[in-house]
């Protein structure tokens, strides 16, 4: 690896290279005081350079024990982790089954569709369902709802919360009749209390908020889902330089992934739709371009098929492509009543 790839300020890098330290082995082989003298920088700066050089070449200076490379995990350990990952139910069992149980935590999932198909509905449903207590099979967590378009209607969240509480009461009444005395029942207003709502009015605020979330979630460790509705809106209108937009969007996607991994939470990004001219005709595609479509780990597309709303797993590292139907009722997302054409595998 070359020395110019190190994340250093350009003047220090320039000095390093002009002093002849062009590759990492050459840097790692000197002591910090020699480096400082040679390159004409301070001792602290030299120490920092050596630390960075050692980090990037992957040589763990201390214990050469379990991992060859710092920070790597072997696939067997990861399998156990993956299997015990909690998932957030969407309240529609068909949809849950094609998602492998629900929206997975530690992952970024993008959900896109035409206006009116139910993206905001899924967002609100997930922010309520993440709060289902562990006794009922949920995560008992809180939700962050980032609203960029003003589509969050709090009356609707209340409707869905009330239906969720009713369903939970039915469930606990049925399963744990003798535990009812000890359990503190959640009320719909409590559910609304646990949804942290942010209203974002420009892409600057959106980027600022993504940066700030690290601190916010450290202070509110029980947040288990971050929903952004929608990721597209501000980036579609206000950004003139498309190349710059792609760079900023990729950085934002990486930050979301980092948040998901660091705090073991699910990140759900809702996206809009645009028309694209490919293969001789106009087709629908998710907005923000081809580069963005690489950024998310999982992608689900919601679409109309005949009379029904369907969800299609467009991109996933472990799930097969499949589609399932769902409906939006006054109580939230549910299975559609027609059982004949529910889940279809590719």
């Amino acid at each position, binding site marked *: 690896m070359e020395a110019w790839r190190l994340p250093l*300020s350009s003047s220090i890098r320039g000095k390093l290279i002009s002093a002849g330290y062009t590759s990492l082995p050459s840097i790692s082989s000197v002591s910090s005081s020699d480096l400082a003298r040679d390159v004409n920088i301070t001792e602290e700066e030299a120490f920092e350079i050596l630390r960075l050089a050692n980090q990037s070449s992957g040589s763990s200076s201390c214990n050469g024990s379990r991992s060859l490379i710092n920070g790597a995990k072997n696939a067997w350990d990861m399998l156990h982790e993956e299997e015990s990952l909690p998932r957030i139910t969407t309240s529609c069992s068909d949809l849950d089954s094609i998602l492998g149980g629900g929206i997975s935590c530690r992952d970024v999932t993008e959900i896109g569709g035409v206006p*009116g198909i139910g993206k905001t509905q899924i967002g609100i449903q997930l922010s309520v369902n993440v709060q289902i207590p562990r006794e009922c099979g949920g995560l008992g967590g809180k939700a962050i*709802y980032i609203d960029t378009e003003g589509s969050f209607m709090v009356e*609707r969240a209340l409707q869905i919360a009330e239906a969720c509480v009713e369903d939970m009461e039915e469930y606990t009444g049925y399963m744990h009749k003798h535990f009812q005395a000890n359990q503190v029942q959640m009320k719909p207003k409590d559910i609304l209390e646990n949804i942290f709502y942010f209203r974002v009015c420009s892409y600057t*605020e959106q980027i*600022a908020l993504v940066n700030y979330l690290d601190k916010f979630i450290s202070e509110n460790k029980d947040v288990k889902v971050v929903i952004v509705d929608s990721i597209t809106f*501000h980036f579609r*209108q206000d950004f003139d330089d498309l190349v710059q937009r792609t760079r900023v969007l990729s950085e934002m996607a990486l930050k979301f992934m980092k948040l998901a991994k660091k705090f073991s939470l699910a990140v759900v990004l809702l996206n*809009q739709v645009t028309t694209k001219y490919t293969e001789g005709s106009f087709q629908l595609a998710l907005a923000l371009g081809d580069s963005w479509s690489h950024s998310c780990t999982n992608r689900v597309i919601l679409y109309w098929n*005949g009379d029904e709303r369907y969800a299609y797993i467009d991109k996933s590292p472990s799930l097969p492509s499949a589609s399932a139907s769902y409906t939006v009722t006054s109580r939230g997302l549910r299975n559609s009543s027609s059982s004949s054409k529910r889940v279809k595998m590719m």
Partner: protein
Amino acid sequence: MSNKLIGEMGLHTKISNIFAARNIITAKDALSMTEFELMELLDVGMKEIRLAITLISEATSPPCQSARSLLERKVENEHLSGHLPTHLKGLDETLCGGIPFGVLTELVGPPGIGKSQFCMKLALSASFPVAYGGLDGRVIYIDVESKFSSRRVIEMGLKSFPEVFHLKGMAQEMAGRILVLRPTSLANFTESIQELKDSILQNQVKLLVIDSMTALLSGENKPGAQRQPQLGWHISFLKSLAEFSRIPIVVTNQVRSQNRDETSQYSFQAKLKDGLQEHTKTYDSHLVAALGINWAHAVTIRLVLEAKSGQRIIKVSKSPMSPPLAFPFHITSAGISLLSDNGTELKGPGINTIHARGHSDMINFHGDCS
């Protein structure tokens, strides 16, 4: 928020000066670049950049509220928890009270179906005192196609609220609260709404009606591609106007015919080949809402007015809090009234299509407006 000055955020003076020296003055300037680019530009180490960006981001982030406090605030501060009643019982029930505050509501339909009539009735009811279900405030009515008729408004008032209207001077007072603007061009309109932004709260404006948005944009004679950025700006502006002034904004939209090769499919749908691929009946006039898909995403509530077999129908095509219901209506001297308060629930394709069959007036297709 994005124009917040970096100088006032409490950053270390040294780094603050470095930012200023490179002309990065506001939060927007700093956050529009990636961290790596900033490091290159400012010649400062990654750790310091990260620290600075963390501070800038914290200062620029919007505040957090719980959904519960949102609800409580609406219930306490706003009339009917933030809804403008339309006085159409079935519709008001479906929309949880009426046209919601703070968001864009769209009325779309073929010409002559009753969009302007609906708007005039809404304007009238917003001007009424609270005791009669109004907002007791002023209304700004942007009338692009000269469809506003004061005589008609007074007639509607007399027929639907006779107790109020017959009181002396009431008609004058109510009508006096409706301010009609006739912009001559898009630029004219843009200027007016920008002026409006500051004076809305002081002047007790409680409703903004734009009739119609399509006419404003199509009058510009610009080819499709150039129209998008303009529409984009207006969308953002109107949405933030609605939200910060907490008023309802009602916009009417026209319809256009759908082109043959316009698809509404994703690339994977051809491969799936599932379900019923009904081909829509080719004898039906194939209409869609104008202004494109971006606009369709931006409106929160879409009410479609259409005609099917001679019967006029109003349907809730897009609404986050209501099922897709359709109500038959007719227009009388008192304005629009529903023939039945029990809506019929619509399925799939019926929700988004717009029919104009059996509509006795001439239908002009407005060409390609998107």
